């Protein structure tokens, strides 16, 4: 992909996020000028950048959005939720387009059609400027480009140059109308200016005055002496309709950039002949360069008319005039010239009659040139007191810090390399053991171990640094909710205020990403089932507006995320009855379960309390899915609820899941990893002390009976413990329960990068992933919950 387009897509992504965010905030604080300005700027940047590509629909749509936002910014319109809906829809459409652009590097074929309705809607509050059923959307083969008429000139060379460039870049056209009203049209109750102001999509209007005004005494105010040239985006059909009563007084042409350039070149060639004879080369000057040079001179002329350049500004003006004149083949020496002299020189080169200086009288000779002779003292950095200071509360205010945008894949690659480094580093411990055991050199073994610990420290720091790069604020995960809550609450007819807390809490990007779906589910659940309608709330003596809070807080190496609402809460009795009806709990449990345990039942597979399934939560996915996906991340989920006053669901997730510490054990000569988090302790128990209760091997530890599972049997591996040796039992804690795993041997703990199971093993639930060990072997890491399930089935 062309790098410019790649840059645009990356920038567009950021812009879309800030537009969404800004619009939602705006709805809450409609008056906030800072917010309006932010959204406007994003739309504006979008429009400007989109013009660099052949995406005319994108430019048109963002232009319409920008115009609407500009009206809001200027206080001419108040943003209502209908407009916000249309704006959000427009940017949603753009988001879809950009996905298409990412894949195909062009807009979808339906873009023009899709945009048309939205553009009309966006323009409606601005007085419903009808959007041209645009020629731009017709296949270009059908488009008729007229030869450029002479009467374009009054639009101004500079404007024509710029417009031609724009039309060429966007491969679009403009319609130009010349309107020569009859002299006596006023008597027919015609008002040409009124007609012109009704031209839709008016881009530029210019009024042509008579070559010669009559003397004031003889002026007949009822004779129309003016005529008009107009550039518009409206279609020819629209224009013909508008001017239907004066068809003989108008000419309409459709021109593209090339046609306008032909006009300019023709004009320039003529104009160049008027350049003073001192320029023999003039006719050989590239017409386009000549046009540019004239534009610079025109700019200088204008500058002298509207301002009083002095000092460096005048010096710069002289510089640009000299360069431009030279480009036209007119060498000028304006060293030390004052404004009047520069003005005269400019007019000379442009071939214009000198005009009376503008209302401001020429100032008496400024001592500027003397001042210019001395180079301006460079002010030391930090000194400029007149620079507007960045707002203190502006989060982007730290000028100078460069934020590097890095492709996510590169960070992932770095993480992988850190993992491989860890693995290579772990290899040293094998080497140390070999040095001692195979070569009998304890000294060498020690030196290798020293090297290892040095590398270990660096590898750990490197890992921490990379992990830090991967950290993202929770605001990334929370970002989608303002929109979601807004849309859903409107559909449900509930009034809900969303509050987020701890948005700046950081967690690994994988955690943030994986958090998305469970959070959406919890929030939808809250909106759908937890929060009552305003009427119900008021009847229950609560404020009509419900409150939904998303909060995050760091807790050691974990992050806690809570979704809480002040809705109706979970009724433990109802949950228990439902669970009983569905056969999830026994009659005994129906009686004995505490309220807390009852609430926890909602996480059971196949449980759903909603009597009727709404279209929001959908069918089939329940809270059990939330628990499963959170547990897959190595986290836990719990729910507290008080009937009538609300529900809090708390997710506890590891801050990072890139590196896992595992304890290596082996059975039947095969090594397995067990996440260290789950390991309580390792014990060796004489065979004779193993007990048996109800067909279950147990071990008694400090008075507690701990069931022991034979890992080999659970995994169906051929191995039986040697009765002459002590039993190696790994005590783990799963779901708050202590369980012993009977293994053949304990090995060391290692840091591994866990990779998901792939290929044939992908369906083997008893493993949570694979990791590469230092000696090149692949380690299977156990999913203990599943292993316990297997053991229970095997028993």
């Amino acid at each position, binding site marked *: 992909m062309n790098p410019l387009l790649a840059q645009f897509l990356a920038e567009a992504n950021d812009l879309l996020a800030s537009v969404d965010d800004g619009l939602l905030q705006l709805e809450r604080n409609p008056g906030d000028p800072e917010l309006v300005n932010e959204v406007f700027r994003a739309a504006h940047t979008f429009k400007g950048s989109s013009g660099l590509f052949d995406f005319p629909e994108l430019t048109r749509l963002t232009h319409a959005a920008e115009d609407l936002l500009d009206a809001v910014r200027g206080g001419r319109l108040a943003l209502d939720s209908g407009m916000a809906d249309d704006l959000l829809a427009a940017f949603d459409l753009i988001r879809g387009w950009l996905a298409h652009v990412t894949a195909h590097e062009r807009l979808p074929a339906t873009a023009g059609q899709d945009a048309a309705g939205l553009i009309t809607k966006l323009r409606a509050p601005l007085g419903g400027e009808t959007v041209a059923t645009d020629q731009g959307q017709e296949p270009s083969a059908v488009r008729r480009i007229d030869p450029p008429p002479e009467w374009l*000139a*009054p*639009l*101004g*060379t500079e*404007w024509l140059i710029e417009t031609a460039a724009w039309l060429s870049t966007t491969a679009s056209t403009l319609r130009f109308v010349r309107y020569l*009203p009859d002299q006596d049209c*006023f008597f027919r*109750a015609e*008002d*040409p*200016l*009124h007609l012109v*102001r009704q031209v839709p999509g*008016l881009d*530029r*209007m*210019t*009024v*042509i*005055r*008579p*070559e*010669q*005004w009559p003397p*004031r005494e003889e*002026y007949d*105010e*009822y004779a*129309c*002496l*003016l005529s008009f040239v107009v550039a518009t985006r409206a279609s020819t059909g629209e224009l013909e309709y508008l001017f239907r009563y004066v068809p003989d007084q108008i000419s309409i042409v459709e021109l593209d950039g090339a046609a306008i350039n032909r006009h300019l070149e023709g004009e320039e060639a003529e104009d160049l002949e008027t350049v003073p004879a001192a320029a023999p080369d003039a006719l050989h000057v590239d017409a386009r360069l000549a046009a540019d040079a004239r534009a610079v001179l025109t700019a200088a002329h*204008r500058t002298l*008319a*509207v301002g009083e350049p002095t000092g460096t500004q005048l010096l710069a003006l002289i510089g640009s005039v000299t360069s431009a004149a030279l480009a036209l083949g007119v060498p000028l020496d304006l060293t030390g010239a004052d404004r009047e002299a520069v003005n005269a020189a400019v007019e000379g080169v442009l071939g214009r*009659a000198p*005009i*009376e200086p*503008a209302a401001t009288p020429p100032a008496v000779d400024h001592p500027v040139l003397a001042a210019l002779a001395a180079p301006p003292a460079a002010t030391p950095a930090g000194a400029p007191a007149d620079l507007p200071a960045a707002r203190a509360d502006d989060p982007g205010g730290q000028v100078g810090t460069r934020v590097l945008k890095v492709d996510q894949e590169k960070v992932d690659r770095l993480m992988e390399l850190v993992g491989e480094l860890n693995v290579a580093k772990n290899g040293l411990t094998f080497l140390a053991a070999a040095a001692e055991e195979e070569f009998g050199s304890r000294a060498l073994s020690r030196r290798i171990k020293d090297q290892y610990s040095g590398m270990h420290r660096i590898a750990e720091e490197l890992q921490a640094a990379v992990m830090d790069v991967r950290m993202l604020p929770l605001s990334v995960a929370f970002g989608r909710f303002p929109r979601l809550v807004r849309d859903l609450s409107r559909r449900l007819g509930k009034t809900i205020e969303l509050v987020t807390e701890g948005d700046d809490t950081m967690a690994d990007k994988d955690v943030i990403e994986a958090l998305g779906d469970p959070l959406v589910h919890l929030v939808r659940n809250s909106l759908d089932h937890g929060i009552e309608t305003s009427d119900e709330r008021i009847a229950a003596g609560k404020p009509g507006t419900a409150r939904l809070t998303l909060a995050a807080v760091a807790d050691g190496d974990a992050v806690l995320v809570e979704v809480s609402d002040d809705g109706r809460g979970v009724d433990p009795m109802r949950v228990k009855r439902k669970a009983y009806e569905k056969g999830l709990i026994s009659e005994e449990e129906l009686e004995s379960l505490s309220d807390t345990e009852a609430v926890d039942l909602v996480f059971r597979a196949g449980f759903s309390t909603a009597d009727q399934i709404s279209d929001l939560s959908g069918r089939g996915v329940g809270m059990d899915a939330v628990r499963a996906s959170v547990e897959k991340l190595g986290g836990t989920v719990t729910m507290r609820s008080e009937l009538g006053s609300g529900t809090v669901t708390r997710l506890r997730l590891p801050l990072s899941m890139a590196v896992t510490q595992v304890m290596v054990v082996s059975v039947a000569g095969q090594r397995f990893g067990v996440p260290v988090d789950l390991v309580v302790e390792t014990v060796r128990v004489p065979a004779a002390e193993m007990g048996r209760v109800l067909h279950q091997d147990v071990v008694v530890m400090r008075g507690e009976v701990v069931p022991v599972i034979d890992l080999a049997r659970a995994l169906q591996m051929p191995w039986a413990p040697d009765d002459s040796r002590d039993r190696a039992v790994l005590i783990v804690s799963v779901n708050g329960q202590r369980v012993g795993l009977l293994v053949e041997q304990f090995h060391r703990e290692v840091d591994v990068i866990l990779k998901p199971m792939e290929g044939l093993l992908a369906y083997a639930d008893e493993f949570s992933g694979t990791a590469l060990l230092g000696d090149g072997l692949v380690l299977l890491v156990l999913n203990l919950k599943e292993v316990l399930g297997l053991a229970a089935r095997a028993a």
Partner: protein
Amino acid sequence: MPLELHDENASLIGVVTVDEVEQLVGWLRSSQRPRVSLRRCNHLHTGALQALLLFRPKISAAPKDAFLAAQVLPLLTGAGGDTSRQGNEPP
């Protein structure tokens, strides 16, 4: 009333129609240093625009109307306002 005329100051208010043009021209002819406020003007008839272009009063207040402000005001105040010369100079 679309026209509020004083000795040297005038305000054009609302929609100035062809019926007001004669009165406006009379005032422009008689006034020494006419100044015209367009602030509250929403539209002016081509005849009125033409008169302003010929007599070139000083515009004392810009119109609030978007079309007049964007397209018409520059004609009345801009550098292209030199009446003696170019009939076809870009505004």
